């Protein structure tokens, strides 16, 4: 599903060079839930942004479904993100002026689909995620956990192949965070989705199938998660 080969990402700030990713090689098979761990500044978000085609690597190749995404023109990238990817961020996942259900169908609306066709499906998802009756609420009327659930629903609505989550629980208390993680786990497993989730919380990382550790932009560990008996 994902093939990362010798990818480096260098940021230049004036004379300073920051090697955010340094020769990373990684393969993620379809259906795997990969947790990426590392301390702050270790390059986790950079990796995720590259996978999400939000950014291009300085060197190396990056293939998703066997296709080299860094070569796509901008339009095609947008379409690719819309159709194949789901994103969840740490905060500011939702547009404040849209209702919960509108936020969920936003990517599909951007794709030009009609509301009427999307809304029943979105409503069903929201119900499934325990947000019954909240579909016309705006983000400022929702709790942090509820907002993340809406974001998950949005990421899943278009039935993408790959879900990318950047510290989805970083802003939540541990109880709510746990619930959100469980939801991600269950919802993606049911759909056989590939997931890459970035976190610096070891506990959170445990929900995945495999943990890759980054430090200073390099892969310093790659272990399967032992299934707790």
């Amino acid at each position, binding site marked *: 599903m994902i093939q990362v080969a010798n990818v480096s990402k260098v940021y230049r700030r004036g004379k300073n060079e920051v090697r955010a990713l340094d020769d990373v090689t990684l393969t993620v098979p379809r259906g795997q839930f990969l947790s990426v761990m590392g301390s702050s500044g270790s390059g986790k*978000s950079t990796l995720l942004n590259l996978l999400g085609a*939000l950014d291009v690597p300085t060197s190396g190749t990056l293939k998703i479904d066997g296709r080299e995404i860094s070569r796509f023109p901008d339009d095609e990238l*947008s379409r690719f*993100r819309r159709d194949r990817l789901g994103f969840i961020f740490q905060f500011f996942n939702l*547009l404040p*002026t*849209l209702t919960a259900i509108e936020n969920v169908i936003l990517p599909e*609306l*951007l794709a*030009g689909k009609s509301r009427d066709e999307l809304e029943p499906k979105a409503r069903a998802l929201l119900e499934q995620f325990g947000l019954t009756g909240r579909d016309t609420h705006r983000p400022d009327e929702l709790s942090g956990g509820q907002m993340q659930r809406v974001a998950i629903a949005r990421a899943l609505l278009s039935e993408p192949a790959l879900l990318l989550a950047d510290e989805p629980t970083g802003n939540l208390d541990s109880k709510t965070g746990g619930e959100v993680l469980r939801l991600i786990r269950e919802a993606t497993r049911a759909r056989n989705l590939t997931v890459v989730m970035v976190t610096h919380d070891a506990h959170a990382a445990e929900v995945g199938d495999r943990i890759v550790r980054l430090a200073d932009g390099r892969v310093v560990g790659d272990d399967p998660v032992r299934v707790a008996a």
Partner: protein
Amino acid sequence: MWSLLRLVSLRHVFGAPLRSLLTLIGVAVGVATLVGIAAINRSVMDAFRSTIDTVAGKADLTVAAETSGFPEELLETVRAVPGVLHASGGLSVVAPVKDSPGESMYVMGVDLLDDGFFRTYEGVDTDVGKLADDLEFLNSTDRILVSERYAKEKGLKTGGTIELITPEGAKPFIIHGLLKETGPLKAFGGSVAVMFFGSLQEAFARGRTLTRIDVAIDPRVGLEAMKDRLQKVVGSSIEVDSPDRRGAAVQTMVRSFQLGLNLGSGVALLVGVFLVYNTVSISVVQRRREIGTLRALGATRRRIRALFALEAGVFGLVGSLLGLPLGILVGKAAIGSVSNSISEIYVKVNTHSVQLGVPEMVMGLTLGVLGSVFAALRPSWIASAVQPVEALRKDAAIGAGAVEVKSWPTYLGVFLLAIVWPTTQIPPPLENLPLGGYAAIFFILMGVTLLSPLVLRTLNVPFARPGELLFGISGRLAADNFARAPVRTAVPVSALSIGVAMAVTLSSFIGSFQASTDRWIEQAVPADLFVTSSAKLAGTQNQSMQASLQKEIEAVPNVDLVDPVRLMAHDVLGLRIYVISLSSDIYRSRGNPLILEGSLPDAAQRASGQVVISENFARRRDLKVGSTFPIKTPTGEHTYTVGAVIIDYTSDQGSVIVDRELFVKQFNSDLVDTFHVYVKDLGALDQTRAAITSKLSGRFNAYVLSNAELRQEARKLVGGAFAITYAMEIVAVALALLGIINTLLAAVLDRTREIGLLRAVGADRRQIIKLFAGEAFFIGLTGSLFGVVTGGVVGYIVTKIVGVQATGWNFPFSYPWGTAVQMVVIATCAAIIAGLYPARRAASLDVVEALAYE
């Protein structure tokens, strides 16, 4: 304070160079129009005054009947008055130059023997001292002296000729000699010809009349005493005044026109100041955290307020300084049109140069700086309310403030709108100065501005559907964003609405005026052809024609009737109105004047001094049917009785229609300004017209206009009078568009994360462009819709209150639907175009950086 300014503000100013630049442009252009127009107004009046002053020379008192003249015997009477040391008589005419439309010469008829006492003439190739004995000069009717400069400019030499239009047709005038351009030869922009007064009387069919006697008095008697003595001798029909008091009627007359121009230029500055408000508000929002830090470090509230006010003041100062040179350009660009309009409507002025004087510069700088500081008051107040803890808040930059319904701007806005009507009812403090009406207009504009955020924040609902239909989901989001920061969005919306409102206002006034003039000419002046000399419209620019032409025109085949009409500017009851003389029988049988009161006098009533007056003259001087009033004529002061009040748009000062027979007798003049020609067969109109033209064209700069063409000219005159003001409102609209750019640039910054999010979930660049172009669309649409509505109200006030006070005319108001639709379409499209730059900026944001933006 200065170090704080340097440290905190400068960095910000240069950090947002485009916004700072747009703000400076706003102030500069606003100041430039204001200053440019003020300079034009002063230059025109200076030129007018200097013509009066240079012509008056060293006279202590002037005995004058400028428009109608008096018999030359009066000169001897004046000389005989004890205390008169010296007296010199003269007369002057403005004579059009043949085959040079719009160009004319100020021809002074003087007695060189006497005149040297008051005015200095310096000969170039002529000995001025000897001219008084130069029989060739004295006994001819066609010898003139011009300035060396004028001659050079026109390629004339001594002995050469220049053709001027006289009432008897074009005549060649021989350059008898050249004078230095000093003293009176500097008058009228230097287009001056001097001739012997007897020759001038002859050449211009002035009989044995003079228009002016300059008097030097015995200082021991005193000015006031001499004035009284002279006044007693010359009778009440002739003014005795010191030269500096002369021209007052003209200045009063031009005042409302100039005030309108000034206020029109003020609108551009008002919109420019909005840009300052916009910029300061934006910077307060974006610098909340910085302000919090400053507060935490011990800066007092007052200091924060002063900081922002100072920052705005510096913007104002720099903008104004840039605006001054720009003002000269504005002045140069507009002087032609303005002096043209004043010449066509009020008095022939010859000004084509404009200088920026100290008064304009001071005014420009003061208003530019004060306006900017004033604009910063509210945002700096908001800034000073920032709490030190906000320095620590992460989301401090998000959002541009909510609207509270029960806040002081709301109350103030409601209050201002509430006092609009009472304000319009305040009577003007000075003739032609409708201050109440103008204040009311300002209150409306400000009231609407203050209340607009309240309306804006509800508009996402009605805009959501059309937005989505037009631009897809981006349009829906644009509608949301539009209503989301209403205080901020209200600024460009209001700025645009003010510009559009003023354009619609002007258009409604002009349109209503034109429609009324049109109707008036069609009904009251229904002649088929109008014959004039040297200008298409009789008034200030044409040359009168001799009465005998009537016979010649009557002899043209197909001509049924010819009415010789005189339009003489004349001071009556302190107003420079038009005395119109016409053949009452033709007027009664052919015309169908719109009578407001009374009825047209019959022959017996006319003979007893019954006249018809215009609506505006009646209103200005509170005259009714049966009222009596005096007119000074060359045959003494006569009393006239108002027989009827009619609608007449000849002059915004007023007009009196006197039967021709009576006029010729009392004014001692049978000259004609326009022949109204009625034909027998309208089908042959063109041939008749051609016949008249060919009969006159060699001799006069003759114009023969059909009724439709006359109406067209009248429309052009009205349109031309407001062309500059209209152009300035368009400038204001353009400045408002800069405000849109500013606001959207700030919105792009504020919503960077949102843009990142949208892009991450699949929005392509085009959709981001649509998001911001859509918001610009809503700003443009709302601003122009507000504008066309407000403009309707203001237009009504201008037509029905300001206009009535300034002109005395009360014409029906008509809403300019065409202009309104045009304005909405153009302003909205222009707004979208203005929005494209910020939109492109948004679309080209790096997604990763946008997502990481805080």
